[in-house]
């Protein structure tokens, strides 16, 4: 592979992949907190619609959703999004639905006495959420969010099928240019792995800070892969897994 291919396709591709990941993660976070908090709302209607949203977006395939936003939405709505933003919208909405389950789970895991204490002190529901529940729930959300972030990173590869020039698309072009597949696809896989590794390091720092804020220590990594360990094993045998294979 020549320096030109590297400079013109692969490097910009890496940058687009990173941008896609960050923007979609930002949108997904907003959606996750919005829907997740709505699922603990006291009105049944609100809970129902939030639950409906999560089931729909968790139920459908993110690639199908992406094609739908890309090809069908313009026909139904009469306007089209720039490809990049269509992709961010699709990824953010579907991974936000997975994130909402994490938010809901963490909120429900806060000891009930904490909420009752808030009621006893006559906090408004919003004050309870902001001052009591969220500060305790957020540090618990970070490890599963970290896993979801990697799923999201892997999900961004789908945009190459829409012709957006991310690193997977660059790999495809390089393959056509060099008629050599093994090298470029191995490099691409390594690039994704390195980005995933860096993202988890970042999330680990975030977790340590968040847990220090409420006086806890993060659990140490387990097992042989402590140094390389990208994910905490969040699965419990009885656990209905949140996230899980976006792409």
């Amino acid at each position, binding site marked *: 592979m020549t320096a030109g291919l590297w400079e013109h396709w692969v490097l910009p591709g890496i940058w687009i992949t990173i941008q896609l990941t960050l923007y979609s993660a930002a949108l997904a976070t907003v959606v996750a907190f919005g829907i997740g908090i709505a699922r603990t709302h006291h009105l049944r209607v609100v809970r129902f619609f939030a639950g409906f949203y999560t089931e729909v977006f968790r139920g459908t395939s993110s690639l199908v959703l992406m094609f739908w936003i890309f090809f069908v939405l313009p026909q*139904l709505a009469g306007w089209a999004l720039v490809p990049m933003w269509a992709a961010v919208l699709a990824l953010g909405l579907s991974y936000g639905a997975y994130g909402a389950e994490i938010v809901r789970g963490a909120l429900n895991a806060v000891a009930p006495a904490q909420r009752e204490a808030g009621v006893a002190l006559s906090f408004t529901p919003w004050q309870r959420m902001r001052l009591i529940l969220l500060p305790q729930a957020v540090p618990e959300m970070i490890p599963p969010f970290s896993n979801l972030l990697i799923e999201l990173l892997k999900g961004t590869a789908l945009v190459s099928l829409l012709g957006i020039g991310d690193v997977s698309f660059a790999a495809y072009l390089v393959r056509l240019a060099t008629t050599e597949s093994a090298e470029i696809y191995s490099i691409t896989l390594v690039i994704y*792995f390195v980005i995933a590794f860096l993202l988890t390091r970042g999330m680990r720092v975030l977790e340590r800070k968040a847990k220090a804020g409420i006086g806890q220590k993060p659990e140490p990594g387990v097992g042989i892969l402590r140094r390389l360990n990208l994910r905490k094993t969040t699965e419990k045998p009885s656990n209905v897994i949140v996230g899980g294979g976006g792409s």
Partner: protein
Amino acid sequence: MNNGTDKWDWGAVSDFMPHFWDGVLVTLQVLALGSLISFGVGLLWALAFRAPTRFIRWPVGIITEFIRNTPLLVQLFFLFFVLPEWDIQFSAETTGILAIGLHYSTYTAQVYRAGIDAVPVGQWEAAKALSLSYPRTWTAVILPQAIRRVIPALGNYVIAMLKDTPLLASIGVLELLQRSRLEAAQTFQYTEALTVVGVAFILIAYPSSLLLRALERRLVR
């Protein structure tokens, strides 16, 4: 027949339905075979995590982490383009099944591992006290207890796999998404075929997840 800019055309839906059912068949076939591979290979990974020597544990740990943290789509292209260069010829569908099965085996491996870790130490000790052989300890004592607990979690990954089968459209496997794209390319009506496919995924995935939740309540404890 309307042109593509109209809002919704039921005629296009009924035209698409025969292709839709063919697509469902392919999707379910990929899903079934992919699941089998992922269950089998995942169990092998999980046993290797517990291997007595680190010369097995470490490489297996690194390989599975690598597969788990890189995109299925790129792995799919890797297998699809690189295997023929090494003179290994598979059909697109076989390649897709292998890619999905292998990718998800690294997830099921973690599920099995969690299940195996949850078997009480006393069970291992009892097997040792009865002087059961190593293979016998696994097959008669540990695995039957571990697998029972992890069935719902495995089911979750089958649903996740279902939602990843559309990726196979990228290498030309005639599953649901590819059928809808072909239909759209012929009729210039993207709306109907793609919407039908999207709704179909929800209609399969949501009841299955309800079923799993019910199963979980029965199987776990």
